[in-house]
Structure formats: structure tokens, C-alpha cells
């Protein structure tokens, strides 16, 4: 049985459907990523799992218990890190940890060994007496994670823990998550970053409150339909416009060049004449394998 299961979850705010008939399940020991742009509904799903929101319909369950009705029994096994930094900025690193130790009833020798352990992986010990408000973004997130881990939860729910954090700290943060996974902790994490999806066990694409697709990071790009080419030309507005005029083609700026999507059953020779007429050299088109982002964008546009 899945440790976490969400079934047909729906939640509206006024006329906006934040989450629309959303279902997924997470197994014990998995890292499950909810990926999507801002406003996709990730936070609503996560807050429902944490008993903070009552859904309009559907159920969220953790360890066989209803997140809305039996949340008290879930609390001891759950660690939650909200999107905004929610520790006490005027307390030091140690004081924040001690506070959460008290809240979770982790005291005395248990507390000391737990804090030593948390310091070891967070590398926050040299900053023990620094106030939380004076920490860097990355360190703040590590402190928040440490507090959420105080009571050794079996399941960890993280809402965009790495948004606004520098790339190096993001990598360190994910190393900690992978370490926790080894210890058997189940992790649900939301993120807008595709490179983080690659490090999860399974991911779910979320857009406008709906589930677009779900799968392993390796399998997800396989959902891409049609073919993809990299056009080695300057990605100006004019070039993009000219390419999009060509039938069965969608062009999008991608780094230094342009990604050109061809619809299913359409090949490059099929549109060669049209391309030449638009002033493009077909030799400049190089077939490439679609990645997670290409796949996500295609699914997003189709929805």
C-alpha cells in the first residue's frame, strides 16, 4: 500500500480551480517531485497533505489516515517545510533547534545526539549562535530542514525548498535529501526546477491544478510526441515568428539557439520547402533528444 495517496483532490478559490481532480500515490522510501510553474497548484496540494487546507472534494491520506480528519495522528511521523521561511528570525540557529526540540518533546540526551546529527549534515555548527535572519538563503533552508527533521519523521513534505537558493546550495540540499532517502525517509518535494526532477525517483507534472503526466525522470521525456530539432540560429523575435509561421512547427527560444518541435508524423523533409521559402537552411537543423523541459512544455501547451 502506498504511504501517501491523494485521490480526486479538488480545491477552488472563488472561481479559480487551484487543484482539479488531482490524484497520485507515493511509496515508502521514494522521492516524489511535484513540478510546475508558479500558480500550478503545488502548494495547495502540499498544504492539503499537511492538514492546513480542507479540499472541496477528494481525499488525501498519509499512512492510511485521512489528512483532514485524522491529522493529529499523522503529525508525529510528518516533517513539513513551507515555501516561505517560517522559523524565528530573531532566534539563533541553536535556539530555533532547541525550540523545535521542545515542541516535539526531543529533550536531554536524545536532543543532544539529534542536534549533533543535524549539524553534521547541515554544516550549520559554525553558525550555531548566529541569528536565523543573518543566515544566507541556503543556510536558512538547511536550518528549516533541520527543524523539520528534529523528530525523525518518516515522511518529509517540502514546498519549493530550493526556490531562490544559489545553485551550489541547491546541490548540497539535494545531497541531504538523497542521504535521507537512503535512511528510508519518504520525501514529497515541489519544485519549479527540471534539474531537480532528474534527481527524484518519480515526478509529476502539474499545470493549472491538473496532473499532466507522471513517471520516472528517465521515462517522462518518452512522452514527447513528434520530433525535436535544435536550430543553430540567432533566437531573435523575427526568426521565431518566421519559424512559427511554418505549418506543423513550433519554435521556442532555448539557451543560445531555438528548439523546433515537429508535430507527430511530420518529418523535416516534409517541411523543407516551406523552410527554404521562409529563408532557413535545413542543414542548420540538428535532431536532438527531447528532455524533461521539452516534454513539460509540450504537455503544457496541449492541455
Amino acid at each position, binding site marked *: 500500500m502506498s504511504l501517501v495517496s491523494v485521490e480526486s483532490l479538488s480545491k477552488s478559490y472563488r472561481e479559480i480551480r487551484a487543484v482539479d481532480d488531482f490524484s497520485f500515490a507515493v511509496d515508502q522510501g521514494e522521492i516524489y517531485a511535484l513540478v510546475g510553474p508558479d500558480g500550478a497548484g503545488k502548494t495547495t496540494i502540499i498544504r492539503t497533505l499537511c492538514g492546513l487546507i480542507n479540499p472541496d472534494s477528494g481525499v488525501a491520506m498519509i499512512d492510511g489516515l485521512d489528512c483532514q480528519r485524522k491529522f493529529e495522528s499523522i503529525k508525529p511521523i510528518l516533517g513539513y517545510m513551507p515555501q516561505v521561511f517560517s522559523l524565528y528570525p530573531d532566534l539563533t540557529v541553536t535556539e530555533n533547534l532547541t525550540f523545535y526540540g*521542545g515542541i516535539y518533546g526531543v529533550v536531554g540526551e536524545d536532543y543532544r545526539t539529534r542536534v549533533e546529527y543535524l549539524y553534521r549534515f547541515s554544516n550549520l555548527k559554525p553558525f550555531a549562535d548566529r541569528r536565523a535572519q543573518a543566515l544566507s538563503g541556503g543556510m536558512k533552508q538547511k536550518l528549516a530542514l533541520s527543524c523539520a527533521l528534529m523528530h525523525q519523521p518518516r515522511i518529509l513534505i517540502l514546498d519549493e525548498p530550493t526556490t531562490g537558493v544559489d545553485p551550489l546550495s541547491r546541490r548540497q540540499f539535494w545531497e541531504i535529501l538523497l542521504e535521507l532517502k537512503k535512511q528510508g525517509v519518504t520525501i514529497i518535494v515541489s519544485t519549479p526546477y527540471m534539474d531537480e526532477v532528474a534527481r527524484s525517483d518519480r515526478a509529476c507534472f502539474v499545470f493549472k491544478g491538473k496532473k499532466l503526466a507522471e513517471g520516472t525522470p528517465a521515462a517522462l521525456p518518452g512522452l514527447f510526441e513528434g520530433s525535436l530539432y535544435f536550430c543553430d540560429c540567432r533566437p531573435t523575435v523575427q526568426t521565431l515568428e518566421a519559424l512559427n509561421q511554418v505549418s506543423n512547427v513550433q519554435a521556442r527560444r532555448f539557451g543560445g539557439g531555438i528548439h523546433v518541435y515537429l508535430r507527430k508524423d511530420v518529418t523535416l523533409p516534409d517541411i523543407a520547402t516551406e523552410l527554404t521559402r521562409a529563408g532557413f537552411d535545413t542543414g542548420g537543423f540538428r535532431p536532438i533528444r527531447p528532455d524533461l523541459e521539452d516534454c513539460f512544455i509540450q504537455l503544457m501547451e496541449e492541455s
Partner: protein
Amino acid sequence: MSEAFRGLVRKEFIQVFRDRNMLRIVFAVPIIQLLLFGYVVKLEVKNIRTDVYDFDQTRLSREFVNSTSAGGYFLPTPAETPLLNLESSFQRGSRDMALIIPDGFGKELESRGNITIGLVADGSDANMTAIGTGYMTRMAQKYARDVVGMRMPLNVKYNVLYNPEAESVYFMVPGIVATLLTMVTMMLTAMAIVRERESGTLEQLLVTPISPYTLLAGKVFPFAILGLFEISLALVVGVLWFDIPFVGSPLLLFALSALYLLTTLGMGLFFSTVTSTQQQAMFFAWFFSVFAILTSGFFTPIFNMPQWLQYVTYINPMRFFMNIVRGIMMKGAGLMELLPDIYTLVIFGLVVFTFSAVRFSKRAS
């Protein structure tokens, strides 16, 4: 559970003592309020600057004028402006009253005839006018009695209990104690809870196994302690600096303050459930405080208020606490004398605190 409660209380104290603004509210505000009210607010009237128009210019008239300066209530000086212009010195604000002694004052007095003297007062200061004209009337009667042996057919012998000198500060300090306890505990509680909501820490706490009631107790208890500390500070300054007498039992005062805290903390809790920012919470607490202070009898006696307003004062818990503080400090009132006020505060406390606690924990779960 008690571990969580202790953690909450310790955290709250660390935050209070680390926040400069909080420290100012906790330590500076009571002392400044006491000094301000103790020195500035004088309900008794002294040094009334009085222009004397003495048209009699006899030994007796001069003696009478001199006698009015006894006790420091009047500062009589010979008038410099002509009588018809006496208003101009009021308008300039250089005089408060004018005393007019008619020609023949001395002669009439000696022959025990009927004498009328004139007193003109600057009514723009209503308090000074009311009190000053009273003083002058009494002084004139006293002069007539003592110096000339004229007898009034009816005399009043009065004995003012508890504060015979009518020292404002004796009356003010208990008022400040009641005010401080109300404002500090209500405002700090509301703001401390709303701050946690603003910063998202409250939501974080709701995901932990802590029960809403432990959370509530842990948020409210530190401010109860601070409130009792505040009144101790105010009392120490009042007794040591202003020499105010403390007639009753300090223990009873603290016990009843703790009872009153149920209401003020409950109010703070309530404001925290109807506001979402610290500014809003502060505004609510301020608004309520102004209402509570004005209708508590702190400055103006409740019996002076129009009847409908007197009824309104019954919904002000501070009114009853004010009575208790003044009763214990100034009159030495004991438990039995204060029972009606105590019953009322018990009801207020239970209703307000329970209502707010239920509201708070409903929102918290």
C-alpha cells in the same frame, strides 16, 4: 506536553528581551507614564494667578488679600490693567482670576454689615474655575470668621479620608497600574500571536503535534508574567519615588490582577483572531484601550457621566479593576468589600477568555 509549553515560554521571553521596541514598551513605558502622570497631571489646582482690584485700600482689605495666598492656591498681585480691560490679561493667558474688593470693604466688615466681593474667573479652564472659585469662597468665609469673628449660621466640618491633601499622584498611580496592566498584556498578546501568523511560524507550529491549548497557554503565559512585572515596577516607583501610601494587601492586589489578566489576555487573544497584521492588532488594542480608560473612571468620575454613558461603563472590565486597585491601595479594602467587583471580573474573565480561546483553537485546527 509540558516540554512544549516550556519551550514556547522560553522562546517568547528570548524574543521580548531581544527586541528593543519590546524592551521599551516593557521597561520605559511604565516609568515614563508614572513620571508624566505623577508630575504633569495635577487635578488639584495651585498657583492661580490672580489680579487684585482693591478699591478699598484699608488694613483689612490688604490683610484679606494676603490671607488668600496661604496654602499656595492663589498668587495675588495688584492689577495693572484697568478694571474695564481685565479680560485682556485672560486673553493673553497671563492671569487666571481677578478679585475685586469694593470700596467700603473694611468699614462694612468692622460694622458687620453685608459685604459682596467680586471674583472673575477664566472659564476656559473649567477645572481651575470650579476648584478656584470654591477655594476663594471658603477663604473669604474663613477670613470673616477668624479675623472679624463673623459667624456663619451653618458650618460644615469636613474630614477627607484616604487622601486628605487631595494629592493627584495618590489617585493617579493606582489608575496607571490598572491602565498599564490592561494595555501591555492585551497589546503584547495580540501582537505576539499575529506576528507568528504574519511570519508563517504559526502555520509551522500547527503541523507539529502541539495541541492548540498548549500553544495558547504558551503564548499567553509570558505576557501574564510581564503584566505582573509591569505593575510591580509601577508600584515600586510609585511607593519609593512618589511616596504614595499603599494601605491594603499587596498580595490581594496581585491575586486580583491575575484574575483581571484572564480578561485582558482574552481580549488580546480575541484581537489576534480578527486581525491579520500587527498594525491591525495594535489599532484594535489601542481603540479598545482608549474606550476602556475613558470609561473606567481614571480621569473623570463615572457618576459625572450622562446616564446612558454610565450604563456603557458596565461593559468595561477595566472599570471594575480600577475600583479594585484604588480600593486596595488607597482605602485598604479587603476581599469582602471588593466581592461585587471580583464576581464581575470572574464573569468577564470566564466569558472573554473562553470565547477567545475557543475562537483561537478553532482557527488553529
